[in-house]
């Protein structure tokens, strides 16, 4: 049984003539321990898709299933890493992580909760900044805190909504390598949403293109299996013989789908 599943999920906004379908009849199944990346251009409903998986948005029709059971609300078993970090500015790095750990692991003593937080902060290499406030950190460091906060709650699925898209290219590259190496140690189930094909191929076992629908809401395309051995780094992946053809195929599919949908808009 897949760990996380979407069955014929549709979601749109507005009513009557103002209605826009964002995602339409979407099916997805994510196996336990799998790293799935969903790639799509902006405006194709990426955030709607991941919010639906998280339970922050309820689908208009269809079902979100977690181990076969219907999901109706968000919960800590689906940990979310938000695009804009969503750290609480009045708390330090340690307190931000502790803030998430306390409700999820209430049976631990305070000292154990702190130790638990510190372990995950060390994992994202932020021990030196543990008492700093988010405003004193760079964008990359903030996203690390956000990642540590979510990992520390030990979710069954890690949902990442374009976690690196607000970062500069260099920081982004470093963090990509780090996320990959953390994942390779921990093998947690991950759904990553991104607009970066390289990033998707680097990290994921399967890359699923998010295709803009023809005025009907987006759908998911056929998955591409990334058969590049782990451990991976940006460098090893870039030199792998199957990297370039895979990247080309995905980009062409995405561009083609976008062109089609735009032509349709232009005609109508």
């Amino acid at each position, binding site marked *: 049984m897949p760990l996380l599943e979407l069955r014929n999920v549709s979601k749109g906004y507005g009513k009557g003539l103002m209605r826009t379908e964002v995602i339409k009849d979407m099916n997805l199944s994510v196996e336990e321990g799998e790293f799935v990346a969903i790639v799509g251009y902006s405006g194709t409903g990426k955030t709607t898709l991941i919010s639906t998986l*998280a*339970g*922050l948005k309820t689908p208009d029709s269809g079902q979100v299933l*977690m*181990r076969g*059971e219907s999901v109706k*609300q*968000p*919960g*800590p*078993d*689906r*940990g*979310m890493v*938000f695009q*804009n970090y*969503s750290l*609480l500015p*009045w708390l330090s790095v340690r307190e931000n992580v502790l*803030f*998430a750990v306390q*409700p*999820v*692991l209430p*049976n*631990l*003593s*305070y*000292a*154990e909760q702190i130790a*638990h937080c510190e372990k995950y902060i060390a994992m994202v290499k932020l021990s030196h900044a543990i008492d700093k406030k988010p405003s004193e950190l760079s964008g990359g460091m903030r996203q690390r805190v956000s990642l540590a906060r979510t990992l520390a*709650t*030990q979710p*069954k699925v890690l949902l990442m909504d374009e976690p690196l898209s607000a970062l500069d290219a260099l920081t982004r590259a470093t963090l990509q390598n780090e996320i990959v190496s953390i994942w390779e140690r921990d093998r947690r189930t991950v759904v990553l949403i991104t607009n970066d094909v390289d990033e998707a191929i680097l990290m994921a076992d399967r890359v699923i293109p998010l295709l803009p629908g023809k005025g009907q809401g987006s759908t998911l395309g056929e998955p591409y299996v990334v058969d590049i051995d782990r451990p991976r780094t940006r460098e090893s992946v870039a030199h792998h013989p199957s990297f370039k053809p895979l990247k080309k195929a995905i980009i062409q599919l995405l561009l083609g789908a976008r062109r089609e949908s735009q032509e349709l808009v232009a005609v109508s």
Partner: protein
Amino acid sequence: MNSTKLKKMFVDNVALPSIGIAICLLLWCFLSWATWDANTSSSDFPSPITTWTDSAKYFATPFSHNDSEGFDGIGLEIWRSLKLVAMGYGMAILAAVPIGFLLGGSYRFSRMFDPIFQILRPISPLAWFPLAGLIVIAIRRHNKEIDATQLQCIFTIAMCSIWPTILNTAVGVRAIPQDYLNVAKVLRLSAFKLFSRILLPATIPYMFTGFRLSLGIAWLVIVAAEMLSGKSGIGAFVNNQYQSGTYGPMIAAVIVIGLVGFVLDRLMNVIEKNATLILSCPSLVIRFFQQLRSQSSPSFSNETVPALIQKESCDASA
């Protein structure tokens, strides 16, 4: 390098304000010179020097009763006014914070009461004063001990100074980023935790802006209310001096009112800037006790941690 910096500080903070004060004193002198009455050989508008000599006795021993001569020091009058302000303002902000949270957080509450608040807000303290009097009459029917005029002033202050805090708190609640609420939803925080750990800290800067504005209004209102009630306090002092034609002390008192208002505003400014720090004190105390408790209780070994987590996730999926 350093001396130019010092020089600039001196010019900005000492020299320029002094010149401003000097110009105003000159204008004041001109005003009293222009209103010179040769028949009484005095000015209708007292000069700065006359003002000082006439009112020096109130400033000489500001905090003492001078029963034999029948007047109280100016500090004592200010103190009486400040006490009333503290009570009225305290009542106002205690009521305003929960109302502000409801107004900002509940759509229905805001549809119900927002129009009423908008109508009540511009009502002048001079109009609230008699209305507050009615309430005091009703209370006095049950308890004759109460000082009616004081209570009337307190109510008037509360009614006038409540609005900035209500409205700013509501704005603060509405301005909480959706992201914070999403984090709370994913963690399934209880309503209490959501309030105490996210809504309240996120609203604090707005709330404290409200507190500062409210205090400014409270100080404006006390003078008006005491002028109407006419018994004690700095407002009554101004009114009494005016009625008895001793304009020197009256002008001095007006200046003191301004100075006290200025000091209160500066004070609130400092508090506002350090609001988060001040309010984090209770949580620091709680953390201290948590630490004490965790040290005294037998702690889990590291091996039990994954087991607990396992149990946790089973509970969640069940």
